[in-house]
């Protein structure tokens, strides 16, 4: 957890309203996929939390959707520097994933699963990936997941690409057994997965945040084991601690 000035290398559109931002700077604060960074944007009071998609020693990749004023302003920055708090949150626990984990991403919940998938494969695991989007123009990173060597299915709500329907429809296509699952996406998707799967799961949640580092109690949620801060004790929670 630290404050770092990153340089913008590229910041390009990769799907409808979706941008990939590649930054160079000190990534030493990042220790696990599923962690996030909090970005200061000129003219905005609060930082914007964005999941780490991928990183190496010197570069950091983020993927974000333009949903409001802040992300729109971010999408216009093509050069210069950005002030980030990095290495926020807990991230996914790789050691709890087993040999055959299922990774499920919905929309811009997909990015953190990429970094996770990469590291799981490095460790010798054989992840299967399901990505859910509304339609073909929103799909991104299907190829990238496949290049990592993961079996990758895409579901689109309108059927314009891959399986027609939700990620749970794509799930029905799969016949193999999984040791665990990791998911990030809209809450209804997480809930549906929890209902559909009877194995250990790690789910990444979103909440409106002020600090992003555990100080303000802005992002609390109740779990079976007491209240947790999504930003500090999460964003990844165990599926069986959630009170749905």
């Amino acid at each position, binding site marked *: 957890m630290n404050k770092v000035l990153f340089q913008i290398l590229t910041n390009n559109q990769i799907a409808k309203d979706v941008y990939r931002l590649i930054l160079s700077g000190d990534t030493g604060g990042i220790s696990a996929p599923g962690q996030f960074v909090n970005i200061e944007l000129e003219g905005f*009071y609060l930082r914007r939390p964005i999941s780490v998609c991928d990183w190496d020693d010197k570069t950091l990749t983020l993927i974000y959707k333009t949903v409001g004023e802040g992300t729109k302003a971010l999408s216009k920055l093509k050069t210069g520097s950005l002030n980030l708090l990095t290495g926020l949150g807990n991230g996914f626990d790789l050691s709890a994933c087993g040999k055959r984990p299922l990774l499920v991403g919905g929309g811009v919940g997909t990015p953190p699963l990429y970094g996770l998938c990469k590291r799981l494969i490095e460790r010798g695991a054989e992840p299967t990936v399901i990505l859910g989007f509304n339609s073909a123009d929103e799909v991104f990173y299907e190829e990238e997941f496949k290049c990592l060597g993961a079996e990758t299915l895409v579901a689109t709500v309108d059927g314009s690409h891959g399986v027609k329907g939700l990620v749970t429809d794509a799930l029905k296509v799969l016949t193999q057994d999984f040791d665990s699952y990791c998911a990030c996406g809209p809450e209804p998707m997480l809930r549906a997965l929890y209902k559909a799967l009877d194995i250990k799961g790690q789910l990444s949640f979103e909440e409106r945040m002020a600090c992003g580092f555990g100080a*303000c109690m802005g992002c609390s949620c109740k779990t079976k084991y007491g209240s947790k801060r999504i930003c500090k004790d999460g964003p990844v929670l165990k599926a069986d601690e959630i009170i749905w």
Partner: protein
Amino acid sequence: MPDLSVTLSGIKLDNPVIPASGTFGYGAEFKDFYDINILGSFSFKGTTKEPRFGNPTPRVAECVSGMINSVGLQNPGIDAVINEELPRIATYFKKPVIANIGGFSVDEFVYCAERLSVSEQVGIIEVNISCPNLHKGGVNFGSDPKAAAEVTAAVRKATNKPIYLKLSPNVESITEIAKACEDAGADGISLINTLLGMRIDIKTRKPVIANKMGGFSGRAIFPVALRMVYEVSKAVKIPIIGMGGVASAENVIEMMMAGASAVQVGAENLRNPYACKEIIEALPRVMAELKIDRLRDIVGVA
């Protein structure tokens, strides 16, 4: 050598910069960013008798130059604060802390103050009377001079520590409330708490905050806070801890010139965890520019 030290009710602080309650937790998250012993002190998260989860989420909303929160006094309760948080604080913070207490009845304030009085770590008890008083038919302790005086007098009897009453700005005359607290035995006044504010999400057509409204704070509220510190400092003789929108060394100095003996920094800590450190480091330079040798000399000069 510029002298940054100030004194609050006999407690000498190395400098007037104090993170505000609710924006600094118990300090644990910030000690990972910097050595928080450089602070004058810090005011910990408002503590109540029982543990509280607080309000439903979303609890925060962004505003131009500020934010709204409706955390709703989430805290682990006085037992956990005394048995777990204070001992943990002792491992990384060596100065007296400001113990902020919330409450829904006079008894609750008294109970919390009594329990905290025994701790040597507690320098000042900050009594936050800006919460709705469920026992008084919806009247806030902080917006009725009589209720404010009642809390003050009761807490006064319950502790030997200096007590600072923390006031709400959502009132017509803050000086009346402050005077009532002074007369009832307050050692000092902390002000301001948050302004009542609201945002609506124009896409969903619903309030952003689950509880609809919340407390508005941050840089935007500085002129209101400064005015209230100025007014209260002319009306009472006890020291004032000024806060509301402070984000720079210049803001600290302006607050002190308005009459604050020390200054708290709230929401700014959330957007920049190093805010207090940067302010403390900037103070000597700004003092030199303004030819201020001793910070305490400027209290109330305006």
